[in-house]
C-alpha cells in the first residue's frame, strides 16, 4: 500500500515569550504523518509533545508563536482546496481554525475528570459536537447521540445521556470524551496521554477502544505518551522526541528492537519490563537542557556518558538506517567509532534474533 501523507511538518520552530525571555520549545521539527497510521510520539515530560500537537489545531497558548516552518494539511476536500495542502502554520484567525477543529483534526486531553463541562448532560455535550459537524436535528440528532455513546461502549446509553459527568467514573468519562471526538468525524485524532490518569485495567480498555475505532472509522491517530508499553500496544510508527526535536523515527519494531540514538537506548533501558531482577532500574542521569538557551550540538550529549567530541560542537543530521527508520546521531556517520549500546539493548536485539 502506498503511503499517503495527510499531515506534513517541515522545519517547524515554535517559541514562547515568557516575560520577555524567549523559550525555544520546538526546534526544527520535521515529520510526515501518513493517512490511516497510528503514530506514537514519546519522550520525557517537557520535551514538547503537547506543544507540537497543539499547533495542529491552533490551541497554542497565547504567549506561543510559530517562528518558522510549515504544517501542511492534505485532508481538506471541500471546495476551497480540493486535494491541495493548506499551511496550518499560516493560520492566524479563529475563523480559519474553525475549518480544521473537530471535523478535520480533533484531540483528546489527558484528564477525563476535567475535560467535560460539569453543568451539562453528557448527551448535550455530544449533541453539540454532532450539530456542529453533521447537520442533524431533533429525533435524528438524539438517535445519533445514543449511537455514538454505544459506539464507545457505554451501555444503557438512552438513560446515561441524560446524566451529568459527575455520575460517571474516570474510565467512563474518557469514553465520553472519545465519543465527543468521534462525533466530530475527524480525520486525525490526537490523543494526548489519554490513559495517564486511569488505572491499568481501564487503560487497556481505552486503548482497545481506540484501536477498534481507528479501524472502524479509518482514523489517523497521533498518540502522545511517555509510556513505552502503551506504544508497543498501539503504534505502527514511533517518533522519539528530546528537548523539542525528534531524535529517532521508525516503525515500531525498528525503534524497539534496533534503536540507534543514545537517548532511545536510555529511554528503553529505563523500562521496568527490561530490567534484570535484583539490579537497580536504570534511570537517565541529569536533567533535560534549558530551552531558554541556545543548544550547541546534540542536545542529549551532556547526559550521555559515551558522547563523542563532535556531539558537543555540531548538531548531527538525520541518518537513514532503512527507508522507514532514521536517527539523528553522529554514531551513524561512517567515520564514527564503534559504540556498543548498553547491555539491555543488546539483550533485546539477541532476543529478537533468536525469535525471528
Amino acid at each position, binding site marked *: 500500500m502506498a503511503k499517503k501523507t495527510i499531515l506534513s511538518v517541515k522545519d517547524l520552530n515554535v517559541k514562547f515569550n515568557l516575560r520577555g525571555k524567549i523559550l525555544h520549545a520546538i526546534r526544527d521539527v520535521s515529520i510526515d504523518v501518513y493517512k490511516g497510521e497510528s503514530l506514537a510520539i514519546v519522550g520525557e515530560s517537557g520535551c514538547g509533545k503537547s506543544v507540537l500537537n497543539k499547533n495542529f489545531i491552533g490551541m497554542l497558548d497565547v504567549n506561543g508563536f510559530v517562528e518558522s516552518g510549515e504544517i501542511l494539511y492534505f485532508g481538506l476536500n471541500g471546495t476551497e482546496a480540493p486535494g491541495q495542502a493548506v499551511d496550518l502554520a499560516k493560520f492566524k484567525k479563529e475563523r480559519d481554525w474553525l475549518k480544521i477543529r473537530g471535523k478535520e483534526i480533533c484531540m483528546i486531553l489527558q484528564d477525563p475528570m476535567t*475535560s467535560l*463541562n460539569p*453543568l451539562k448532560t453528557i448527551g448535550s455535550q455530544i449533541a453539540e459536537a454532532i450539530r*456542529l459537524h453533521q447537520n442533524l436535528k431533533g429525533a435524528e440528532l438524539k438517535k445519533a447521540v445514543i449511537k455514538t455513546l454505544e459506539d464507545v461502549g457505554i451501555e444503557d446509553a438512552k438513560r446515561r445521556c441524560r446524566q451529568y459527568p459527575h455520575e460517571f467514573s474516570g474510565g467512563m468519562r474518557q469514553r465520553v470524551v472519545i465519543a465527543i471526538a468521534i462525533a466530530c468525524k475527524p480525520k486525525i485524532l490526537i490523543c494526548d496521554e489519554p490513559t495517564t490518569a486511569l488505572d491499568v485495567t481501564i487503560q487497556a480498555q481505552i486503548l482497545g477502544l481506540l484501536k477498534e475505532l481507528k479501524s472502524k472509522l479509518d482514523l489517523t491517530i497521533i498518540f502522545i505518551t511517555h509510556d513505552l508499553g502503551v506504544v508497543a500496544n498501539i503504534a505502527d510508527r514511533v517518533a522519539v522526541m528530546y528537548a523539542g526535536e525528534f531524535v529517532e523515527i521508525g516503525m515500531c519494531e525498528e525503534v524497539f528492537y534496533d534503536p540507534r540514538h543514545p537517548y532511545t537506548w536510555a529511554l528503553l533501558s529505563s523500562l521496568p519490563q527490561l530490567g534484570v531482577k535484583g539490579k537497580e532500574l536504570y534511570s537517565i542521569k541529569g536533567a533535560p537542557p534549558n530551552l531558554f538557551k541556545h543548544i550547541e550540538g546534540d542536545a542529549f550529549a551532556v547526559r550521555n556518558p559515551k558522547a563523542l567530541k563532535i556531539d558537543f560542537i555540531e548538531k548531527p543530521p538525520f541518518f537513514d538506517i532503512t527507508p522507514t527508520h532514521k536517527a539523528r546521531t553522529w554514531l551513524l556517520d561512517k567515520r564514527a567509532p564503534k559504540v556498543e549500546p548498553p547491555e539491555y539493548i543488546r539483550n533485546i536485539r539477541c532476543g529478537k534474533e533468536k525469535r525471528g
Partner: protein
Amino acid sequence: MLKYISKRLLRSFLTLFIIMSITFILMRQMPIEGYFQNYDKLSEAQIQNGIRMLGLDKPMPVQLFNFYKNLLKGDLGMSLRYRNNVPVTEILAPKIPVSVRLGVMAILLALILGLPLGTLMARYKGKLPDHLGTAFIVFIQAVPAAVYYLFLQLYGTELLGLGLLFDPDKWTAWILPVFSMSLGNIAYYAMWLRRFMVDQSTKDYVQLAKIKGVSGSKLMFRHIFRNAFVPMVQYLPATFLNTVIGSIYIESLYSIPGMGGLLVDVIKKQDNTMVQGIVLLFATVGVIGLVLGDLLMVVLDPRISFGAKRGNR
C-alpha cells in the same frame, strides 16, 4: 427537593427569630421616653399608667412572648412618637410597595448593566474594556457612596429637569434613585463575573469545547458564562443587603416615601415599636436573599443534590 426547601425555610425562620429577639431586647434597654408622645409634660402617675398599659412592667420573657403572639396575628404594635397611636402596619403598608419597587428595579438594572460589563471585561481581558471596567470598579469601591450619590443628585436633577420633590407618578423621577442604588451592585456583579469567567476559560472542558469546534459567542455564553454564573449566585444575598442599605440613604436623599427613609426618621424620633417593625422587614429581605441564593444554586448546579449526602460540595 421539598424536604430540602422546608429544611432551608425552617432555618431561615430560626435566623429571623434570633434577629428579632435581639432587636426586641435591645430596644427595651432604650430610655422609656420612646413610648410616650410628650414625655416631658406627663405626670409620674400618667407615665406609670402608660407603662402598665403597654405591658412594659412585665418580665422580659413575657414581653417577648406577647410580642410574638401579636406578631402572629399580624399586629406589630402602635406607633407612639412618629404618629400617635396608629398601628405600625398601617404606617408601613403604603411604603412597602414603593421600597420594593425601587429595590427590584435597582437590582434588575444592576444585573442588566453589571453582567454584560463583567462579560466584556473577561472577553477582552487585559485590553481597554477591561482596564476601563476595572477603573470603574475601583472608583465605586474606593469612593464613599454618599459622595457619588450627592454628586448624581446635584447634577442629575438639573440635567433631567426634575423638581426637588419626588413624584412617584413621573417615571423620570425614578431614574436617579434607581441608578444610584444600582451602582454598587453593578461594580460587584462585574467584578465577580469577570473573575469567574476568567477562571472558567482556562478549564480543560473549555479547551475541549474549543477543540471540537465551538467558537465565539457560543463558547462564551453556553460554556463560560453559564458556568461562571453558578458561583456568582452565592453573592446574591449580599447584593440584596447592599440594596437595602443603599435604600436607607437614597430614600431620604430623594425624599422617597419608602421604608429606608422612614427608618432614619423613626430612629431620630426614638419610636421603638416602629424601629422594631422596620428591622423585621429588612431582616426578612436579607433572609429571603439568602434562601433565594441557596435555591438558585441547587437549580443551577446538578452536582448539588437536594440535601442528600451524595453531593460533593
